[in-house]
């Protein structure tokens, strides 16, 4: 096993309830793997199993070169931002990081240095002496990410790191995620239910639904796999809509309809090639084409198709 994370047939049950079933996947060194899934899909349980907080009921895995049978070794090599992590309100950010660095075996002086440099790195250098109780949610998330990095981890697990953050905070955290992989060379497993985050940040994606892996691959691969049948939207000037409908009626594999907005037509396609034919037919009819958009090739469609069907 040379991948940063490799899981084979991992299962976690709570009595008769199966939270994660037959989880098998791998993540390469330095990649950002997005784990998507609706609420209750098993994302957090999967992370808790892989980070050794929960024991698997079946299956095996290795993280950062350590097998699941040696949990302390795994914990020494990974960093984790748990979902809804709490923070000791009466500690300062620096005290909090120093304590965690000490738990990873750093000397007193080394822990202080690590704490200060990480706080600078996540943009909290100016607030290092402030009590955590005075931190905003975004600051706490950045502090949590800094805590996940105190041991120079080879694999970082981030469970919903942007939950409850405003767009600026989300952008800041996603920038940090990219830096962790890009500059530190760590593998990042990013759990989220925000599809835009995955499209923007992750090199590969894993979709979980009801404890099962329903798709795995690059964002493009996953989107394509679940996208047929597709639909599209064609926008023409409102006065050309009727003529466009007539032109589209003659194209095989295309059904067009007015979608209620002036000049906007919805087309249902049997395959992606039909969209090209539809666009050509409108252009050949001498109608100005304002825009054309192929739907169903987006991650959101794949996500919905795979999680709703399950």
């Amino acid at each position: 096993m040379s991948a940063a994370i490799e899981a084979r047939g991992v299962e976690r049950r709570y009595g008769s309830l199966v939270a994660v079933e037959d989880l098998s996947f791998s993540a390469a060194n330095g990649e950002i793997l997005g784990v998507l899934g609706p609420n209750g899909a098993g994302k957090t349980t999967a992370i808790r199993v892989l980070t050794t907080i929960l024991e698997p009921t079946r299956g095996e895995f290795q993280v950062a070169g350590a097998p699941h049978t040696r949990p302390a070794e795994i914990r020494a090599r990974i960093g984790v931002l748990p979902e809804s992590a709490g923070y000791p309100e009466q500690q300062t950010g620096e005290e909090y990081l120093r304590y965690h660095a000490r738990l990873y075996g750093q000397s007193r002086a080394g822990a202080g240095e690590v704490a200060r440099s990480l706080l600078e790195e996540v943009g909290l250098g100016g607030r290092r002496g402030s009590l955590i109780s005075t931190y905003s949610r975004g600051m706490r998330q950045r502090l949590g990410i800094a805590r996940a990095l105190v041991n120079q981890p080879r694999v970082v697990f981030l469970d919903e790191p942007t939950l409850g953050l405003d767009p600026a905070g989300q952008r800041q955290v996603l920038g940090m995620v990219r830096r962790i992989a890009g500059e530190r060379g760590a593998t990042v497993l990013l759990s989220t239910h925000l599809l835009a985050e995955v499209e923007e940040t992750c090199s590969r994606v894993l979709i979980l639904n009801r404890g099962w892996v329903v798709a795995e691959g690059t964002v493009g691969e996953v989107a394509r796999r679940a996208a047929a049948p597709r639909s599209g939207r064609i926008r023409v000037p409102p006065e050309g809509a009727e003529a466009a409908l007539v032109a589209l009626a003659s194209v095989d594999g295309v059904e067009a309809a007015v979608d209620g907005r002036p000049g906007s037509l919805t087309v249902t396609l049997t395959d992606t090639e039909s969209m090209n034919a539809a666009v050509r037919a409108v252009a050949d009819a001498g109608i100005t084409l304002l825009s054309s958009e192929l739907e169903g090739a987006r991650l959101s469609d794949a996500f919905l198709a795979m999680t709703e069907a399950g």
Partner: protein
Amino acid sequence: MRVVAAQELRDLWLGGRGLVLGFAFSLLMSVIAYLVATNRALNFLEHRETVNLTLQVAIAVGALLALLAAADTISGERERGTLESLLLTPVSRFEITAGKLLGALSLWLAAFAITIPYVWFLGRGVGLVGDALATGALVGTLLAVFLASFGVLISVVAASNRVSLSLSLLVLLALFVPTQLPSSAQRGWAGDLLLRLNPITAGEHYVGRIVTDGHPWSKDISWLLSPAIAAVVFAGAALFVGARYTRLGGGAAA
């Protein structure tokens, strides 16, 4: 373990909770000392008995403080959402539990330190200060280890911090019930057995024999059996069984 214990001590003492409890304890000791030294109704107490009463209150309340701090250790972290981060470190659960237990026991040590001047003041002139303090330290430490370990165990399995604190207090009150029984109920083999089996009543009985009756240490040593066994068994259970079951979810999920 050292790092966890040091952090517990910082949280407890620099965070202010320990100082507040210590201050409340010293107020209580001042009131007790004032009453036994000046109150007419209590003045009938023989000199040795005033020391014994003060010491017994100090042991009971000091051990109670250790119990309360211990009952908050794991369930408190769980409730504040900080337990997962702690469990994610390579520090073993044994070390986490042991560090927290040591932190909780610091409250007993502080309570005992506060008690010293009161015992010295009340016991001066009758030559029992040394014996009283040594007995108090021994019995109090055994009871504090027993109760704090019990608190940690409850904290490990409790579904919430409130449950942990309530259950710990309930059991402590139950252990104190025999001290409130009429003296007739404490006589005979059944009464004797009840007092000997209960670590708290046995420990306090032993303190009484040394301080009030002036017995040598070895004469009633059998009374120390149940406090000693309770301390060893519960500390072992907290450190090994408790550590094993220190998990993210308390209650049924544990």
